[in-house]
């Protein structure tokens, strides 16, 4: 993986970039942050930002023309822009301590001459004097201020300049006109800022507007002399001082790296939900009171994009900016323990990879793709936390081997249509597949492909397994005469869309909605449709489900946000059980109405949370409402039943599932424990196997005080433990079961 492979996925994110007003500000002040502090009445902190950006805040608060107001996004809501200058003036009044800071820096020996004591020259002189250069300012007038000297409020400005220079040493030679640069031979650098129409010593020709250099290497030009406005002149002073500093250190004028990209303009946001608030008018001609200034500052919309953060529980939990995630996808693969450790594991495996972030991002950044890349990279490097996905990969192995079956309809080699129910539909409720196939066989002469689309491999980052499964599906499809596949599962359909785009697709729900003889039952009179995340961008499937619900006469409510992942996506359940719990709870609470779902995984998530819900196929085929979610063992049994019935019907073959010596053990598990085991993905089949091996080999522990037996079994990367009691022939009551991922070895 190259750095760009990862960062390119998230680089369009502009979260944290300056707001649009800052790009318009001559000082590129962080206005958003200034107003945030001001709104909280933190005048000292606000002043610091203001002073550091503008050098002479007492002048800027009076004279700045506020181009920021042209780029204030209050206009998006139809409001007047923030009255920034009035808040700045209030900040000067309410900041307790305006004394400039002095810095402990070793004095420099280099001498800098500034020609012109206007604001441009003073700004540069102040900055270099703070850095302890030997600064001398020349002006032909008898004081500083340049073009501001005749201003009616000059006394105020004069005091402001004096205040800002009060903590530095600088020499002022007023009443001294520099007539020739030869007079300044003793200086290592010279800044000429003599104002509009001022003396340029013939250096305007050859002036470089980027570095402010002239044909004489040590002489720089800037300010109104070169066409800058008063405010630009102040801002330039700070910029040129840095260029001169580099020149004095290296002999070459150059910019220091700056984080501010002046070419930017800032992004406009939609500000959905922002409330219109009129500008606060000052109650006195003196300006805002403390409270008024705070209220006006609080009108700032704090324009920064948080669309993905606002809706995604995972991003909120980890609080990592998308661009940082992009970088970490790369650094995560280049760790050098103990000096650096992996930084992204938990996040990468906690992402539902549901596409929500992309759908709300103004730049369509899909953070899930970055997380997916991380999973793929770690799997191919053999450094994946295998236990987090092992259960689902085992289920995929089952669905693509013992549970798999593909055939054209009875008596045929090829077909125009074939049903692809996906691994979970039949596991969740065999009737869904059997009834749907009955319908499709009659109407469309459809064949069937029972298997797994490969989503577990995709989510585990197992590219190799995913690809070989895709090849197998392609082969089956080809052998069946390349039929149009009919999908009931949005996850399958989206995976086919991405990996097998040549296969024509249609949604089962669309076909059911079109069929006149399908009369769905109205299980709930009012409901909300919960669209699965994978159906985003699949309007036919969404419309088919709505048509079926409409046909049943259900009064439908649209959820405030559609296509949110129920929590199942990305298989995050073991990687982050707390987050999984939070997400599933939020989705269940999205509406008080019962849900109509059309994804078996959504149904299970809601059933396990006791959220009233119905699969749209229950309605379409008039099936009884099945309350609880099936256990892991029941899901496997259901899948095998579907295969058995379809094989019998189509091929007239009696399918005999693989048998194991432990199959005929009976386990007694109480309902609470069963729920707990399902959440931890501990299946009854594994417990039976562990008990059978322990009992037949005598390899177990006995708890004499409690009268129980304890057995363990290692399965791939998981060690299972089961505590049980024999209650009859081949019958065991399960007292407890648990697992761990670590392997124990020898005695130390």
């Amino acid at each position: 993986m190259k750095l760009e492979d990862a960062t390119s996925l998230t680089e369009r994110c502009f979260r944290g970039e300056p707001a649009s007003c800052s790009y318009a500000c001559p000082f590129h002040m962080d206005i958003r942050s200034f107003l945030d502090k001001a709104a909280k009445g933190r005048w000292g902190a606000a002043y610091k930002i203001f002073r550091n950006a503008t050098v002479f805040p007492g002048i800027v608060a009076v004279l700045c023309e506020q181009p920021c107001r042209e780029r204030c996004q209050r206009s998006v809501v139809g409001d007047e822009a923030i009255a920034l200058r009035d808040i700045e003036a209030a900040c000067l009044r309410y900041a307790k301590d305006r004394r400039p800071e002095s810095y402990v820096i070793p004095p420099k020996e280099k001498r800098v001459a500034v020609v012109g004591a206007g604001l441009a020259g003073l700004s540069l002189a102040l900055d270099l004097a703070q850095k302890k250069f030997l600064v001398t300012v020349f002006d032909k007038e008898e004081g500083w201020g340049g073009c501001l000297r005749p201003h009616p409020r000059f006394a105020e400005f004069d005091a402001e300049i004096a205040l800002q220079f009060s903590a530095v040493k600088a020499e002022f030679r007023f009443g001294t006109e520099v007539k020739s640069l030869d007079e300044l031979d003793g200086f290592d650098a010279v800044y000429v800022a003599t104002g509009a129409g001022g003396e340029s010593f013939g250096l305007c020709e050859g002036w470089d507007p980027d570095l402010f250099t002239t044909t004489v290497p040590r002489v720089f030009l800037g300010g109104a002399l070169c066409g800058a406005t008063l405010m630009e002149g102040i801002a330039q002073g700070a910029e040129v001082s840095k260029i001169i500093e580099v020149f004095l250190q290296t002999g070459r004028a150059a910019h220091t790296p700056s984080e501010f990209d002046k070419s930017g303009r800032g992004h406009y946001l939609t500000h959905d939900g922002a409330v219109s608030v009129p500008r606060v008018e000052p109650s006195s001609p003196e300006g805002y009171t403390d409270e008024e200034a705070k209220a006006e500052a609080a009108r700032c919309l704090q324009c920064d994009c948080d669309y993905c953060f606002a809706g995604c529980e995972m991003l909120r939990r980890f609080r990592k900016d998308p661009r940082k995630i992009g970088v970490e996808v790369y650094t995560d693969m280049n760790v050098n323990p103990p000096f650096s450790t992996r930084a992204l594991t938990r996040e990468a495996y906690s992402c539902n990879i549901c596409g929500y972030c992309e759908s709300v991002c103004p730049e369509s950044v899909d953070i899930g793709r970055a997380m997916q890349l991380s999973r793929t990279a770690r799997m191919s490097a053999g450094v994946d936390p295998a236990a987090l996905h092992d259960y689902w990969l085992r289920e995929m192995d089952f669905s693509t081997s013992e549970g798999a079956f593909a055939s054209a309809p009875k008596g045929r080699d090829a077909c125009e249509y074939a049903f692809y129910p996906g691994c979970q539909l039949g596991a969740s409720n065999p009737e869904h597949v059997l009834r749907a196939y009955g319908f499709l066989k009659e109407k469309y002469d459809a064949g069937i492909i029972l298997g797994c689309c490969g989503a577990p491999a995709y989510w585990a980052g197992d590219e190799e397994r995913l690809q070989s499964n895709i090849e197998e599906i392609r082969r089956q499809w080809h052998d069946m005469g390349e039929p149009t596949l009919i999908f009931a599962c949005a996850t399958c359909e989206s995976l086919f869309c991405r990996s097998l785009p040549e296969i024509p697709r249609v949604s089962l729900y669309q076909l059911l909605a079109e069929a006149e003889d399908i009369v769905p039952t109205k299980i709930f009179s009012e409901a909300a449709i919960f669209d699965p995340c994978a159906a985003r961008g699949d309007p036919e499937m969404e419309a088919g489900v709505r048509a079926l619900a409409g046909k049943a006469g259900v009064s439908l409510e649209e959820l405030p946000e559609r296509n949110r992942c129920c929590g199942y996506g990305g298989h995050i359940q073991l990687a982050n059980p707390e987050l999984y719990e939070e997400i599933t709870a939020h989705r269940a609470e999205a509406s008080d109405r019962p849900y109509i779902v059309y994804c078996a995984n959504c149904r299970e998530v809601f059933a396990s949370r006791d959220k009233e819900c119905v699969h749209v196929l229950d309605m379409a085929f008039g099936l009884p409402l099945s309350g609880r979610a099936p256990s892991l063992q029941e899901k496997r049994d259901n899948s095998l039943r579907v295969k058995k019935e379809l094989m019998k019907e189509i091929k007239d073959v009696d399918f005999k599932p693989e048998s194991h010596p432990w199959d005929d053990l009976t386990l007694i598990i109480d309902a609470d424990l069963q729920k707990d085991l399902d959440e931890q993905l501990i299946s009854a089949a594994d417990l039976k196997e562990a008990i059978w091996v322990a009992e037949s080999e005598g390899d177990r522990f006995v708890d004499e005080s409690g009268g129980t037996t304890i057995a363990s079994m290692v399965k791939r990367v998981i060690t299972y433990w089961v505590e049980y009691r024999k209650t009859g022939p081949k019958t065991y009551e399960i007292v407890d079961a648990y697992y761990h991922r670590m392997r124990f070895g020898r005695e130390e």
Partner: protein
Amino acid sequence: MSEEARNLRCSRCDRELVSKNIVFEYLGHTVAHEVPTCPKCGKVFISKELAEGRMAEVERQLEDK
């Protein structure tokens, strides 16, 4: 039932378990911990308390390393 209160025997060796320092391995890292072990065959017992407590915590830390 807590680990200490248990009176466990290895069924095959018919011996009471004794506490031994055992090496655990996960994702290329190793840690050692005292756990009840059969003194004869060396079979190790991991209680639910340990598996879902300290072990789960260390597993998580090592996954994040």
